């Protein structure tokens, strides 16, 4: 299976080479979509993991055991779709196809599975309907 996750590192765990460990010990293919170390040296990684379901579960369990927070990507970008006016401004900066205008109905379609949390839509939306989740699970 292939699935996207967000890993959050505290200042204590940010130095641990977690990704290489997941590759080596759990045989997981890792594709890094977005990486960021913020003020206070907290880190955030957006990754796509590809492996047997069991291997991914074990890998996530290991990450959690060393203090790294993991959550499915789907919850990461918050979108208040109810207030959306379907202008399409966000689609002009979404290069991964997560936000697309339906060519028939001209309504905005959001597919969280395609999102890499680049954050460009947050600035592009004139109604300010996007935000990054601050939840840690």
């Amino acid at each position: 299976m292939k699935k996207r996750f967000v890993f959050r590192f505290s200042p204590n765990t940010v130095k641990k080479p977690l990704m290489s460990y997941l590759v080596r010990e759990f045989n997981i293919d890792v594709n890094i979509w977005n990486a960021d170390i913020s003020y206070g040296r907290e880190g955030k990684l957006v990754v796509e993991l590809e492996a047997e379901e069991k291997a991914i579960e074990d890998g996530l369990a290991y990450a959690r055991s060393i203090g790294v927070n993991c959550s499915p990507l789907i919850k990461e970008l918050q979108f208040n779709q109810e207030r959306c006016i379907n202008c399409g401004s966000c689609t002009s900066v979404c290069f991964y196809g997560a936000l697309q205008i339906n060519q028939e109905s001209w309504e905005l379609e959001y597919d969280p599975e395609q999102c890499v949390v680049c954050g460009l839509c947050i600035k592009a939306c004139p109604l300010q309907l996007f935000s990054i989740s601050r939840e840690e699970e």
Partner: protein
Amino acid sequence: MKTIDQINEKIRNGNAVVFTAEEVSRMAETMTSAEIAEEVDVVTTGTFGPMCSSGAFINFGHYNPPIRMEEVSLNDVPIFAGLAAVDSYIGASSESTFDETYGGAHIIEDLIAGKDVKLKARAKGTDCYPTKEVQTVINKDTVNEFYLFNPRNAYQNYSVAVNSQKHSIYTYMGSLMPHMENATYSTSGELSPLLNDPELRTIGIGTRIFLGGTQGFVSWYGTQFNTQKPKNEQGIPTSNAATLAVIGNAKEMSTEYIRAAYFEKYGVSIFIGIGIPIPVLDEDIARAVSIRNCQIETSVVDYGLEDKPVLGMVNYEDLRSGTIKVQGKEIKTGAMSSLEKARKIAEELKTWIKNGEFLLSHPVEMMPKNSSVKGLEQRS
């Protein structure tokens, strides 16, 4: 040949034939202009885009003892008070003293939604208006008049924006990525009001329109009204040309068709829903309302450079497809105005006319035939 009076008679009798501009453009694929002129009475158009040159007049009612308001804010957004004692103008792009993402547009939307808004007013105090300070809460039911009066809306065509530079720029045309990675555009193409009557033969001062969910009027030609822009073979100006000033009762409007906006690192603006009915009086008008997206061209402008050079021409069919090709480069497109809302507006206006609730009007005066736009010179 038909007259507006004949069409109004049919509207009153409930048998006027009304289509949206998109429907007529599809019909024109198999019908001639003469057939369309014969069959169709009214074509409805629609647009829902950000239009900064908008605002609302408001009369708060007199306080006791009265105040001649000289400095006024609503929810800490400064509004214009250089009018009589309790008349003010809420400029859509005026920004809150404390939050640049909240402004006049949000006040207008909040008032339309029926919300309470905090009013602060100050004055020097006069013999006839002794009060110097008022702080209270108002909403659309506590005030006297509250009407939209927008100096420039409904642009006839608008240029496409790209950015050739190395860094992202943030504009009223949205986020423009470096190296021309994206392009933004802002009209509803074949559904857009002034693109369906390019010579403004039927739209003039006094024309009754759909404005913000209720009936409004064209009050004047819009600011920066320009009849000098180059036109394509179809007679369509290939960049921003004519504009309209519009007026309507904001108390009757709906937040479905009036929405506040904030553009990153630019400021506050407002989405305005406008729909204009076009009477199909003759074959020429039938031809005009049959215009298709592939026949409406617009210029691609580089917002990354100060003099904004034109890099090429594209049409609305290309823009809607999701990619355009400019100087050999494929560029991803996105709209700033909502086609989905524009369609709703054209449909709603169609329903009003079919139900006999909306009659067409004779313009009191036509728009200027010769109008160009001046720049601002440094003089002393």
